[in-house]
């Protein structure tokens, strides 16, 4: 393909980028220290150490079954690492939003009620009035393009629509840290791209408290267009194989897929994925 610049130039770009890697002045939001985890005799994670900074968008790539979801569960403290490892949050534990790999919707609640559900829990409980919750829920349903389905029940919605509700739910709660497990996997490219940029817009906007985003994804392109750093995990037992800094400026914009820096990064990632 003509688009490709030579290897040398490519490497240069990389070294350059590595230099602009997370500066020490940035605050760490979450830190995984030497986390290993096994289920019975299946060793899933092996000595994973990873820092997530504030105001950072991190993507995680890795082969199917390597332990990405498990990693998120560690960060959510739903699972504890084997002795020796630990998960450390910055002083005050921030509010965390989560999009699981499955939609995890309550079948007895409508789309709107499913979103209001998490708005009524934990720290959000006192903050929000009934009317506010409703407005937030409806706003985030609109964000994901489901304004016409506020009163539908999950079983009346398609797979992609269910997934979008679970994204809307995570966003409505106005989290500081957002963890997402293949949030856009079940969406068509057009909807996916739209939501990608909506999310970025939200993240960049000063009106939301969203600071760090960790997104598990299977799309290399998505990981590049969205994130500051891309974490590549090795196959089970998974460790952090590599971390790539994306040499694209912020804010990201729709045309950036056409920039050389974009497809160089994609290509580099693809190469590393194939060779790991």
């Amino acid at each position: 393909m003509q688009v490709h610049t030579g290897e040398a130039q490519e490497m240069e770009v990389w070294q350059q980028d590595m230099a602009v890697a997370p500066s020490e002045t940035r605050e760490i939001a979450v830190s995984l220290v030497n986390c290993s985890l096994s289920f019975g005799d299946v060793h899933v994670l092996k000595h994973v150490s990873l820092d997530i900074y504030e105001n950072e968008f991190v993507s995680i790539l890795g082969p199917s079954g390597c332990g990405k979801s498990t990693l998120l569960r560690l960060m959510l403290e739903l699972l504890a690492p084997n002795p020796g490892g630990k998960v450390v949050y910055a002083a005050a534990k921030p509010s965390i939003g989560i999009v699981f790999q499955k939609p995890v919707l309550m079948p007895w609640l409508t789309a709107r009620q499913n979103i209001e559900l998490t708005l009524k829990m934990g720290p959000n409980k006192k903050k929000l009035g009934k009317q506010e919750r409703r407005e937030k829920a409806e706003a985030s349903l609109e964000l994901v393009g489901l304004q016409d389905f506020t009163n539908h029940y999950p079983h009346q919605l398609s797979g992609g629509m269910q997934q979008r509700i679970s994204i809307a739910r995570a966003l409505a709660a106005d989290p500081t840290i957002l963890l997402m497990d293949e949030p856009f996997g079940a969406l068509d490219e057009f909807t996916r791209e739209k939501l990608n940029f909506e999310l970025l817009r939200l993240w960049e906007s000063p009106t939301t408290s969203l600071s760090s985003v960790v997104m598990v994804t299977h799309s290399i392109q998505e990981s590049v267009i969205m994130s500051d750093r891309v974490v590549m995990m090795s196959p089970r037992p998974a460790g952090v194989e590599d971390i790539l800094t994306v040499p694209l400026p912020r804010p990201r914009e729709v045309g950036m897929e056409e920039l050389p820096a974009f497809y160089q990064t994609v290509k580099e990632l693809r190469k590393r994925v194939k060779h790991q």
Partner: protein
Amino acid sequence: MSEKWKNSLYPLGFALVFVLLWELAVRALDIPLYLLPAPSSVIAAVDANLGSHMLVTLMEALVGFLIANVLGLLTAIIFVHSKPIEKGAFPLAIALKTTPLVALAPLLVVWMGTGYSSKVVASMLICFFPILVNSVKGLKAIEYEAWELFSTYKGSKWDMFWKLRLPTSLPYVMSALKISSSLAIVGAIVGEFVGANKGLGYVVLISSYHMDTPVMFSAILASAACGLLLFWTIAWIEKKLIFWQRIDEI
């Protein structure tokens, strides 16, 4: 419309066939009245009086049923939230349940007299266990991922209960209500057996002493009717309540 028709035609048809077979059997085999009265003689024995006895029993049963189910659900809730209490108290509950009501009934009368209360308690005791067992099961039958969701959003035990466990348990709870709806009637009647001057249990007892089997069967029939009434009411509520299970489509 036609579905609804069918739905009420089937039970009617079955009941009719059942009654006819019974009548024929009694006539053909010449079964003596005191062994098994024919439906015709049972129906002849029905009178207005029976209605008032039925009402008494139904009331006792309903009150016992309600108390038992509230208490049973509450106990289940406590059990689900405290493993020590569950492990410790469940055996007591089982022990209590296995205590045959019929053996306890005389004591109930001694402790509580022969008024309403002893029947209500009898009915309560018999209804308590099904709701307890099914609720404990149902409250625990939550999806693992849903539990993860609630934990992540720091849902309190309260949230987890009202917004996750309770809805999840509904199919089990309604099943228990169906089971205990008829047990409630049985309980009230057992209570009445020991000492009462009204209610279906009283009618059964008196008519049994008087060897008036048609009256006895009319009372049994009335108790069955009470049971059906309760059961159908619950089934109806269940359908409204658990709208998200597409059971009827399958």
